């Protein structure tokens, strides 16, 4: 059951990565179109900067959830890797608990903020994009991190999960 969920989430993560990759290419293309337009055709697409920044914000936060899923966050794990496995096991649980609480707190605060600006109907200055769209990246991503941590926790209880530090060891060796 947990393995099946793992496989489906992995496929979803890969799909989201592709979407973010295409979004990045769209952002780059818009930027270059503006440069070409400015020098060769004397025009500029209004609001392109805002669209690019909003793409970046989604890449940053949703990408962070994906990095959490892949166990690839930057960390200073030199000391913990030198510790006995029992200590790593304990610290792994502690890390998961902290991540769960903090991410849930951020997701909730962010959700309340997005709810407010949605009610206000705020839009961006130039492209007139509803600002709840970029702002919701934080709520969505930290909610996703909460779900990921819960799933990883269940996997560890079932004995099929890994300690974060072990993941880091794997990355170093890959």
């Amino acid at each position: 059951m947990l393995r099946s969920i793992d496989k489906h989430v992995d496929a979803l993560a890969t799909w989201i990565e592709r979407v973010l990759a295409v979004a990045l290419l769209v952002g780059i293309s818009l930027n270059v179109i503006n440069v070409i337009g400015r020098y060769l055709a004397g025009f500029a697409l209004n609001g392109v900067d805002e669209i690019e920044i909003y793409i970046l914000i989604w890449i940053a936060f949703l990408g962070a959830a994906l990095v959490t899923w892949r166990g690839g966050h930057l960390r200073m794990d030199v000391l913990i890797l030198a510790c006995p496995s029992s200590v790593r096991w304990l610290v792994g649980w502690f890390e998961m608990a902290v991540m769960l609480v903090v991410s849930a707190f951020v997701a909730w605060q962010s959700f309340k903020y997005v709810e407010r600006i949605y009610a206000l109907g705020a839009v961006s200055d130039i492209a007139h994009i509803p600002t709840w769209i970029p702002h919701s990246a934080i709520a969505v991503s930290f909610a996703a991190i909460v779900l990921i941590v819960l799933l990883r926790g269940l996997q560890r209880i079932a004995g099929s999960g890994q300690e974060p530090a072990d993941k880091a060891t794997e990355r170093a060796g890959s």
Partner: protein
Amino acid sequence: MSFALGFVPIALLLLGFPIFLVLLTAVTVALVFYMNVPLAALHQNLFGSVNAYALLAIPYFIYAGELMGRGSVAQRLVDFVQSGVGSLRGSLGITTVGTATIFGAISGVSAAAVATIGRVMYPSMTKAGYPKPFAAGLITAVGAIDIIIPPSIPMIVYGAAAQESVPRLYAAGILPGLLIAGLLAGYVMWRARRENFGAGEPFDRSHFFRATVRGLWALGAPVIILGGIYGGVFSPTEAAAVACIYAILVTRLVFRELSFAEIIEAAAATTRFTAQILIIVSCAGVFSWLLTVNQVPAALVSFLQSLGVGQWTFLLAVNVLLLAVGCFLDPLSAILLLTPLLIPVVKALGIDTVHFGIVVMVNLAIGLFHPPFGINIFVAQSVLGIDLKTIYRGILPFVMLYLIALVLITYVPAISLVGVWVLIN
């Protein structure tokens, strides 16, 4: 408050927590238990820290480097540099230094340079009789130039953290990068002559011409980036975007090496790397805001002023601190954690923040290959299959060379600032 902003981050950092979680936990503890501010400030600062046009240059430069590093660009650059070096003693070693320097003007990601150039040059050097520790040390050390030569990703992050102009930082990085390259090349020649290895082939004009033609497309990327920025044609972000399109066209249509699927895969890899960096940028933004509203930097400035610490002493202390931190922490995290604390002191002491930025870069560049935990050591070990003992034996002379460069760059600000005077002012 010192528990939230001091004990919590240090303890979690030592426990090996992800850096973003270290910062976010400290912020959450401070906001919930110690401060009386609206909690919406958390969201506003997380969002505001990455809501910046200048930060777009990070994924764009990473993507351009990712594309250029996947095809035959490294080999073409190697051929170009080697054909120009000719019969100089240690020609392959000098070629390695020259190629890494040019690659640094395309990529800005140090580990990519070690892997890409190492794959081409390490087998060539060992086959030509270079001592293995020497070749391994050189390959591992030379990639660190990439975070000093523009375009450098850590410089963009420093620019955002210190509110300093990226073009000024880039201009300031050129001469220090070339100084380090010169020191490395000089050392390679001296070792090659002393130990009698690495005789090169005589300079051949037609070979040089052919290699130059083959390398022209690869050399076009730094010309577009640096020429565009300092010619006043593009902003750094636009230069990065144009470099991406250039890299797609060159690798797909000219070299015919990358498929569309590989171009998308490179973009996906870029988004992963970008997210790793920007989530820390975002959380560090909130942490930095908390430090400021709690007047921690101001207290640090007052404390140092009460001790009568001058520019030189402060810079010496910073060098020791950053060298130590750089051994354990990646450059981007180190910049984001320390810059908000150090910049107010730097300004109070009258040190140029651009010069200070370059000092930070050189320190953290050393950390990239400094034993025992420099990340480039593990990249070389994993990609090139060199054992750690060989790398450790070979790396020490190069650490010394970088330290000499660091002393010069720290105490002769003109080495950094001349680029700003010439290209910006």
